[in-house]
């Protein structure tokens, strides 16, 4: 389980988990689950298109995910953000269907773009993933305060002169960067799940921001490791186990939050934890 091709899978899985845990924390905080689903899913069309004209799929993924991030950011300024995101997603998917209809690509290739092929990762793929992952983490680090402020207290952010639309677009570009790095190795499904489940679970365990961020990374790591081990034992897809394990974490987190909340209401003398912060 810890030799040969599995070593690469463990390494890549861990890198992806750390990046998804950090980026995903802000996805959940900002309520950006839909773009986080749309950008990786739609970007697969870019890979199909690049394949068709004989380019590196990574290039197509990059162009499409970046285009989606900028397009959603731009159109959402004058229109309903969720409707715009849905339209951008279906437009990319339709382009993907058109590319696939023109190519001789066979089914397993589509399957692997959507659901990933983490067990088939080569050592050479580690470097670009690690570099793009580092870029994402550094970008989040640089934007940390601004992201927090525009998500938690938009009025304060506006008062100190931050442009929320610009911050949103930059954040979407970070999601695009994370997408380009992860879709070829883990698939669109897995990266979305990792950006939603672990951070959502972490937020229900604690109200403190920094602690929630670190527990989000920790839960993401445990989720990926458990999924890889289960997948190795059963041969079932990794993505399935990732979604089941992260959903289980979320269920436990919500139960804990509910229990804590109900205890707080039964004993009114205890300070009621602020669940909204």
């Amino acid at each position, binding site marked *: 389980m810890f030799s040969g091709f599995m070593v690469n899978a463990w390494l890549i899985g861990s890198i992806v988990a750390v990046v998804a845990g950090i980026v995903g924390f802000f996805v959940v905080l900002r309520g950006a689950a839909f773009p986080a*689903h749309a950008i990786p899913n739609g970007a697969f069309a870019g890979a199909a298109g690049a394949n068709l004209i004989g380019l590196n799929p990574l290039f197509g993924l990059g162009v499409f995910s970046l285009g989606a991030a900028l397009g959603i950011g731009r159109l959402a300024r004058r229109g309903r953000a*969720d*409707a715009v995101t849905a339209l951008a997603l279906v437009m990319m*998917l339709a382009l993907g269907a058109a590319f696939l209809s*023109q190519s001789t690509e066979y089914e397993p290739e589509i399957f692997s773009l959507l*659901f990933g092929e983490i067990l088939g990762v080569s050592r050479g793929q580690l470097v670009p993933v690690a570099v793009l992952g580092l870029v994402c983490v550094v970008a989040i680090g640089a934007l940390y305060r601004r992201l927090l402020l525009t998500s938690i207290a938009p009025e304060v952010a506006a008062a100190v002169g931050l442009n929320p639309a610009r911050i949103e677009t930059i954040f979407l570009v970070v999601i695009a960067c994370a997408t380009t790095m992860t879709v070829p190795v883990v698939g669109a*499904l897995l990266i979305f799940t990792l950006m939603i489940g672990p951070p*959502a679970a972490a937020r229900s365990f604690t109200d403190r921001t920094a602690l929630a961020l670190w527990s989000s990374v920790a839960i993401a790591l445990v989720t990926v490791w458990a999924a890889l081990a289960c997948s190795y034992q059963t041969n079932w897809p990794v993505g399935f186990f990732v979604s089941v394990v*992260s959903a289980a974490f979320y269920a436990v987190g919500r139960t804990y939050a509910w229990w804590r909340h109900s205890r707080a209401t039964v004993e009114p003398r205890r300070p009621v934890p602020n669940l909204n912060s």
Partner: protein
Amino acid sequence: MPGFFSNGPVHVALIVGAVSAVVSAVVGVVVVVRGQAFAGHALTDVATTGGSASFYYGVAPVIGFLVAGALGAGAMDLIGVQRLRGRDLATGVVLSVATGLAALFLYLDATRSATTGATQQILFGSIFTLDSSTVPLVAVMSVATLAVIAVIYRPLLMSSLSAELAAARGIALRAVGLTFMLALAIAVGLSSIAIGSILSTALLIGPAATALRLTRRLRGAFVVAVALGVGATWLGVLLAYNSYYWFPSSQGLPVSFFIVALVFLAYLVSGAAPLRRLLRPRREVKR
């Protein structure tokens, strides 16, 4: 376009496409007003999970689509789709579990039998390969969905536009919301089996969002959305049919591509500045 109007599959595509477009447009206006586009899209993915499961268990795909959609809608409501803050997250969690299950079922389908094309068929669908025996079912369920919307129309709109006002007038917000989610799940499940999951979302959100930018009155928006949806569908089918003659390889482009492109184009055009000025010339005048 030789033989366009005497072609059997084209007839079925035109009829089923129009029925799906009408239902999607009507439901879509409410979805866009309520800000539930993510849920509307996620339910197509949830429904396709049901489709891949039904391939594995050997039941009719329609049943898989509808059961999975209803379960997904119920789960979203349970986790907290009605609260604005938690809604996006609840949809995301349900969606990720559903796609995880889809990965499993597609893998099991692929390993158990060599039913080629299942993945592509489930994910993209095609109006042209539709089985004409599904037409009556799609029609009946569509009428039922529209009937449900008509029955809850007033409380639904009031709770969408102002939840506080609706609650003050004694409307059961939770019940109205859940009923609408179930109607949405059925509409979306039907349209994704009839026309594919991409088109399902496109026809749900696109015409409605465009119509709401073109007119301020809600009744007008319903009419405009239906017209746009049906128009885009029929034009798209026509273009796809003709596209078989465009390339020397006689490899046509998929119909979903054309319909989505038309819908997307309509949305972009509806936001263009000259058109906005034309439609709302006296913005400053008091109404």
